[in-house]
């Protein structure tokens, strides 16, 4: 039967299960920069070393996040697709919008949420226990936990999850045509537009309500839609995939899983090590050089595109010894799995808290937790902006 042939993905969007592909590791060993072609057919420099990654991501003046045109979608007003999408904006516009949100994600604020996060985690574990083994960890635990958290925080009805989960997965699916992904992104914006209008009419206690109440005059409607759409998708897709693939990584190393299960002190460094080792976001938004410059001794021209491989940088020996080994006992490293520079993940404190709550709780509830299928059969979701698992059958 003829089926649609999945396109060959650019190197920086490929994985070999937990690992970046061997070709990327080889490029990291060579001087200068690698060469890749982006999905829109533009050649780009590939940055693979830790120090080079920090240099490029850390300099928003030399390397713009707003330099690449978005794929136009029929019916979208000019600028609408980018409006409020912090990832695709440069300072000072980026700074203005980010500062409206950072107060919601302080370490203190997130610590106050911890009991509620623990309740959400426990409720999912109760449901898994009542249903009995086997379970699929993705729909039964990894996806609902961060979805419930971001829905409550933002003010999105959890009852709408089937639709927004499906749209998010399509938007991030690298095997779908860019036009289709853009179209789905506009559907997401239309959905969020309804919620934003509701918040303008009757602002609640959630983040949408706060933004309308406190910043209603500073933000346009399309900016608010862009911000909220980004928070919804980034709030559940990233952590959900870390919870699923992180659990699998731990179960492949039962002695390390036991440490996370039994030693509360081990949790925080273990979360950082899982983030480093798995770096589920392949790359951030491609950067565009704003002037002729040099990276890793390689001349880079104004207008050149640069793609930074986060998993490659986080597997660099310049960051940690023996980087291809998962070791939850090592001291927390300054990995770039949350990015680096002004676009460093806004929700990082929340993601860390969700992981620090969910991993130990899952392993304590089911001390005999194990994959219910051979490792070779695990369905990795490589061809997505966020790496992870499509499903993970488990038993206990």
């Amino acid at each position, binding site marked *: 039967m003829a089926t649609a042939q999945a396109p060959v993905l650019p190197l920086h969007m490929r994985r070999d299960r937990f690992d970046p592909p061997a070709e990327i590791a080889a490029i990291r060993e060579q001087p200068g920069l690698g060469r890749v072609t982006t999905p829109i057919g533009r050649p780009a420099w590939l940055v693979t070393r830790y120090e080079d990654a920090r240099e490029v991501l*850390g300099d928003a003046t030399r390397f713009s996040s707003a330099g690449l045109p978005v794929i136009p979608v029929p019916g979208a007003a000019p600028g609408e697709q980018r409006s409020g999408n912090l990832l695709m904006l440069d300072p000072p516009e980026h*700074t203005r919008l*980010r*500062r409206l949100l*950072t*107060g919601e*994600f*302080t*370490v*203190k604020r997130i610590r106050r949420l911890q009991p509620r996060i623990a309740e959400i985690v426990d409720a999912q574990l109760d449901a898994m226990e009542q249903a009995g083994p086997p379970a699929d960890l993705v729909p039964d635990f990894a996806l609902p936990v961060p979805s419930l958290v971001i829905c409550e925080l933002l003010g999105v009805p959890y009852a709408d999850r089937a639709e927004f989960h499906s749209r998010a997965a399509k938007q991030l699916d690298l095997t779908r045509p860019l036009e289709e992904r853009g179209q789905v992104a506009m559907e997401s914006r239309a959905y969020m537009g309804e919620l934003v209008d509701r918040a303008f009419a009757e602002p609640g206690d959630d983040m949408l309500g706060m933004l309308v109440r406190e910043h209603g005059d500073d933000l346009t409607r399309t900016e608010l839609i862009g911000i909220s759409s980004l928070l919804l998708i980034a709030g559940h897709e990233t952590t959900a995939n870390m919870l699923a693939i992180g659990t699998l990584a731990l179960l492949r190393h039962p002695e390390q899983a036991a440490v996370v299960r039994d030693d509360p002190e081990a949790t*925080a460094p273990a979360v950082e090590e899982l983030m480093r080792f798995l770096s589920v976001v392949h790359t951030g938004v491609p950067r565009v050089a704003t002037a002729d410059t040099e990276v890793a001794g390689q001349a880079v021209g104004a207008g050149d595109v640069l793609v930074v491989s986060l998993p490659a940088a986080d597997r660099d020996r310049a960051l940690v010894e023996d980087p291809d080994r998962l070791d939850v006992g090592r001291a*927390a490293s*300054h990995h770039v799995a*949350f*990015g*680096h*520079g*002004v676009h*460093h*993940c*806004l929700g*990082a*404190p929340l993601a*860390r808290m969700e992981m620090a709550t969910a991993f130990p709780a899952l392993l304590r509830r089911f001390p005999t937790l194990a994959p219910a299928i051979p490792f070779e059969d695990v369905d990795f979701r490589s061809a997505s902006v966020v790496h992870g698992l499509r499903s993970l059958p488990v038993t206990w």
Partner: protein
Amino acid sequence: MKIKADRDVCIGAGNCVLAAENVFDQDDDAIVVVLEESPQDEDAESARNAVGSCPSGALSIEET
């Protein structure tokens, strides 16, 4: 050592608070506040770690 923090550069990621809670805090907008400008011993070590973990480059150490 003396800790310097540039509040205009800070992006409120909170990495410094997680790395060195006795040395750094955040205000209501998440922007860095230095609690202890000249940390000693263990806090000095945590502060160095915090500076290394800062994504925005807002933090620096002046050795005295």
